[in-house]
């Protein structure tokens, strides 16, 4: 029973996070929301008996991708400040 409940709540969470990523004003928050979807997804993969995918999704989908996004946002801010070549 518990895994099923967890599964449903993860699904719900992901959908909410997705809407957040689309509509939240702040871009950084959007990136974090998108990362949260991946994180929830990686938990879901554990439930679906796919630990390899879970690991990869956590490391790449939520971790690295978010970092790359945040770096980019940081870069853009730098360009705005005129620290540009």
């Amino acid at each position, binding site marked *: 029973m518990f895994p099923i409940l967890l599964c449903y709540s993860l699904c719900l969470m992901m959908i909410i996070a997705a809407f957040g990523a689309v509509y939240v004003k702040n871009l950084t928050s959007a990136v974090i929301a998108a990362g949260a979807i991946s994180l929830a997804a990686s938990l879901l993969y554990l439930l679906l008996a796919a630990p*390899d995918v879970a*690991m990869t999704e956590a490391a790449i989908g939520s971790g690295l991708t978010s970092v790359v996004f945040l770096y980019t946002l940081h870069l853009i801010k730098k360009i705005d400040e005129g620290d540009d070549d």
Partner: protein
Amino acid sequence: MIKRLFVLLAVAGMAVILIPFVSGNGAGDALNNVAATYVEDAPRDLGTMNIVTAVIVTYRGLDTLGEVLVLFIATAGVGFLLKKRREGDPVQPPSEILSTGGMILMPLIVLFGIYVFSHGHLTPGGGFQGGVIIATAFLLAMLSARRLPIYSGLLTWIESVSGFAYLAVGVLGLVLAGGFLDSRLLPAGRYGSLLSSGTIPLIYTFIGLKVGTELVSILDKLRSNQ
């Protein structure tokens, strides 16, 4: 506004196309022939405990080679698009705690990464996951260090040599064993031990090194493009 309507129409169209997949899924209660064969044969033929690894490295090895190359494209593409930062740009000094913590944590994380890719045939995880973990360690170091010199020359070397080694193992498989990327080049070994499963740990090590260095250089390029 009219555009919104079209967008709605397009998304609805996609929904119409995708919805059959909901009902068409999950009804299966047995593995299909291909999957069942993998599960039954892989331990015997290849000596892997982790069937996913067997599929990735051996049965569908060409996909994985392609995947490594796609990541290589990402490195090359990012490098192609973004220019390097000028030397000697000031970087904001991070806080003391972060830098100390980062320096202590980094080797531990690297070690964990190595563990993950070298045990890919036994436990969940493998070259890609391990590589990412190593990259994370460097990321932490980048964040925490005042300036961590990333030797792009060294990165290129590791990247290229490990990639080349992967390919060489593959070709050796073609020459000496059953086919390109055949992991039975080395004996399957004792089931469940670290040094088993033919060349799978070797390949995963090369992949791990390659993926790790690739990701580090992507991050480095994004970071230092200022």
